[in-house]
């Protein structure tokens, strides 16, 4: 795989149950808190804990169109923070070649409860919910709000969608298609996925415990993280150092199963190899790994084996114990956390882990907040469908 040029990240926005902006999220992680609870934003008789955003987060006074799906509201909220963080004038977004590339699951699915209820009650359903589905997703919402004129892409690679969106968006900058790309992931908590994961028997009925011997599955979450990627030209115009860089990206399929991780981890290994080769990094360059770490039996076993094989001794952790699994947003949220940790020089404890699993290699996740050395780290996501995506991120100096 050929090495690629680093792509500058000018700004980041993040919202999830840990906080409504990235700084609050990362402070929350360092405090070691978490507050999963049964869902309140939709009605269900199930009681599996989730990580919902309970605050009224949406800044409706700053957004032109407000009758939107919750996923779109999450994406727009994070985008506002990212643009502010990048100190970009909104006019630049209208005048430059600006693309939007967002990963999602629910945002691109059919959120039409009213339609189903009408249909189920024997009434001819009103078609507005379907019509709204047909014209609404987070990518389009961001493009409409900020008047962008570049390419749009909605990535629906299940749980790796957010990472893939960032990797693909970096390509748009490198190839000169765009001056700026608004990229990331967004997903809301939703009754269908909540019930669906229960059907697969991979929901934990208590707070999740990634990499622990007593792990029973995942807790779902919701949120969004948005990155502002910029070209060299924009970087020079801004006269401000970028916040970080995407150095490399790799993705590969397991070609194995719809919902199970490939036992030999081959797809993940291929994705890691591509990410490392494109970024010209070697394992000793990596300060830490923000692992996928869902808390499911299969994922954590395979992931720990692969990490131990390729990155022996490199600290790793999962942040899903603090946020839940935010599905299509997860890759972007965890990439944002990765950069924030590099900036702080410290990684959070892998909350939920207390007892090692003897089936795993004797390499344990970070058990308390720890200082790190280095300015480059890996963020990896594994997804339904056997998608594996890996980003190499850095806060060091990487002139493009």
């Amino acid at each position: 795989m050929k090495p690629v040029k680093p792509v500058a990240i000018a700004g980041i926005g993040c919202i999830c149950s840990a906080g409504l902006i990235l700084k609050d999220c990362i402070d929350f992680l360092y405090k070691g808190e978490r507050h999963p609870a049964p869902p309140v934003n939709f009605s269900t008789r199930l009681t599996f804990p989730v990580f919902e955003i309970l605050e009224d987060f949406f800044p409706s006074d700053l957004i032109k169109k407000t009758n939107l799906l919750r996923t779109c509201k999450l994406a727009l909220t994070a985008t506002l923070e990212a643009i502010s963080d990048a100190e970009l004038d909104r006019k630049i977004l209208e005048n430059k070649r600006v693309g939007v590339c967002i990963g999602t699951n629910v945002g691109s699915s059919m959120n039409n409860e009213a339609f189903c209820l009408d249909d189920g009650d024997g009434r001819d359903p009103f078609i507005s919910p379907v019509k709204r589905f047909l014209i609404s997703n987070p990518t389009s919402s961001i493009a409409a709000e900020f008047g962008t004129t570049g390419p749009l892409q909605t990535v629906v690679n299940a749980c790796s969608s957010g990472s893939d969106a960032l990797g693909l968006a970096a390509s748009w900058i490198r190839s000169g298609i765009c001056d700026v790309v608004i990229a990331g992931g967004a997903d809301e908590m939703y009754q269908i996925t909540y019930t669906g994961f229960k059907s697969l028997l991979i929901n934990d009925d208590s707070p999740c415990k990634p990499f622990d011997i007593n792990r029973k599955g995942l807790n779902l979450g919701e949120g969004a993280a948005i990155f502002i990627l910029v070209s060299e030209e924009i970087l020079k115009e801004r006269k401000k150092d970028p916040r970080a860089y995407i150095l490399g990206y790799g993705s590969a399929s397991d070609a194995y199963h719809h919902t199970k991780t490939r036992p030999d981890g081959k797809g993940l290994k291929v994705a890691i190899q591509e990410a490392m080769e494109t970024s010209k990094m070697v394992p000793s360059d990596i300060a830490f790994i923000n692992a996928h770490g869902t808390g499911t039996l299969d994922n954590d076993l395979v992931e720990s084996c692969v990490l131990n094989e390729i990155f022996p001794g490199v600290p790793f952790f999962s942040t899903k114990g603090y946020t839940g699994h935010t599905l299509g947003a997860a890759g972007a949220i965890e990439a944002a956390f990765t950069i924030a940790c590099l900036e702080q020089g410290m990684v959070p404890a892998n909350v939920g882990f207390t007892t090692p699993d003897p089936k795993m290699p004797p390499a344990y996740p970070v058990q308390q907040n720890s200082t790190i050395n280095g300015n480059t780290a890996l963020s990896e996501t594994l997804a339904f469908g056997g998608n594996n995506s890996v980003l190499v991120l850095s806060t060091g100096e990487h002139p493009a």
Partner: protein
Amino acid sequence: MKISIKGIGVLGGFGCGIAELEEALNAGKSSVSTVVIKTTAGDIDVPAFLANADMLESFVDKRNLRRIDHYTRMALLGCYLALEDADMLDVDRGHMGIVVATGYGATCNTFDLQHSVITEADPFCSPTQFSNSVHNVAATQISILLKELGPNLSVSHYDMSITSAFSSACQWLQEERVETVLVGGVDEFCKILGYFWHCLYNAGNEKVDFAGKKSPEHAIIGEGANFFVLTREKEAASPYGFIEAVRMGNFERKGINLPENAAFFIGADGYSGCDDKYESFLSEKAKVASYSHLYGGIPVGMGFDIAIAALGNKAGTVFKSAESPIYNQGRLDVIEHDEDLGSKRICCLKLGAGGSFGWIGLNRSNF
């Protein structure tokens, strides 16, 4: 850009495979089915171009298809036909990427799943149904059956899904991430979309035949799949031609820069609300054609236009168009009979919701 089309796999209302697509092009029509949907006001008849994916069993053992629904079967068959056409079924495909576009995803399964979860007293759903409702289910099954470990991408951006997918496929080839990409689109008919069509276009429950349809607003729902094998090409000639450019943007905010010396295959299908806007972006007497009368209104319909363009490149012909979806025909030069392609390139153009546009340019020559 030197990216060539090596193989094409298509199925839709016109039939299955490029030979049946060519037959439909020559005949100028496809057969319309009628689906009966129950409502409180009685049964409604919804016309639709439906696709038959039975031929998939000639590529995949029946036992391996047991839990695979119609949506994914269509995608799989499109892929196998494309690989067969490229003579790549039984050879080492090298490092291949997969990109699947869909406007709506697996709608039948997804709506059934939502219905059961939302309306049943006991919140339960089948794990198979849930995993088959995930938007990347088709791409997953393709990678499993083809044993492909390369990059795998699913995109879902309604009318722009095909342009978006081709953009990434071409990007991967240019970056030399992969040697080959299997790229295409799939969408299926479901009763909800049928009911949607009925509410929008046919409240009087009149039977509508596409050939004699009353106005461009009356579209026929389509379903099907269109897949392509793309590779980087060193040679100057390739039978199906080359992907010259892929462009996306917003025509309301910034207009469209279209290529010169081109025949335009427009994506007017009666659905997007944009059918009357194409004309304003085309120059006086521009050569123009529309083929949605063969495949219907379907978000990934642009893929069929690309297939028709590639077949045209191979034959050196621009196939005759349907007239009905093209507005203001007097200003344009509608291709009423098969014509010699000459040195023209072909531009497949799609306008979509929110002012979005996408176009993909194909050229017979690599220069």
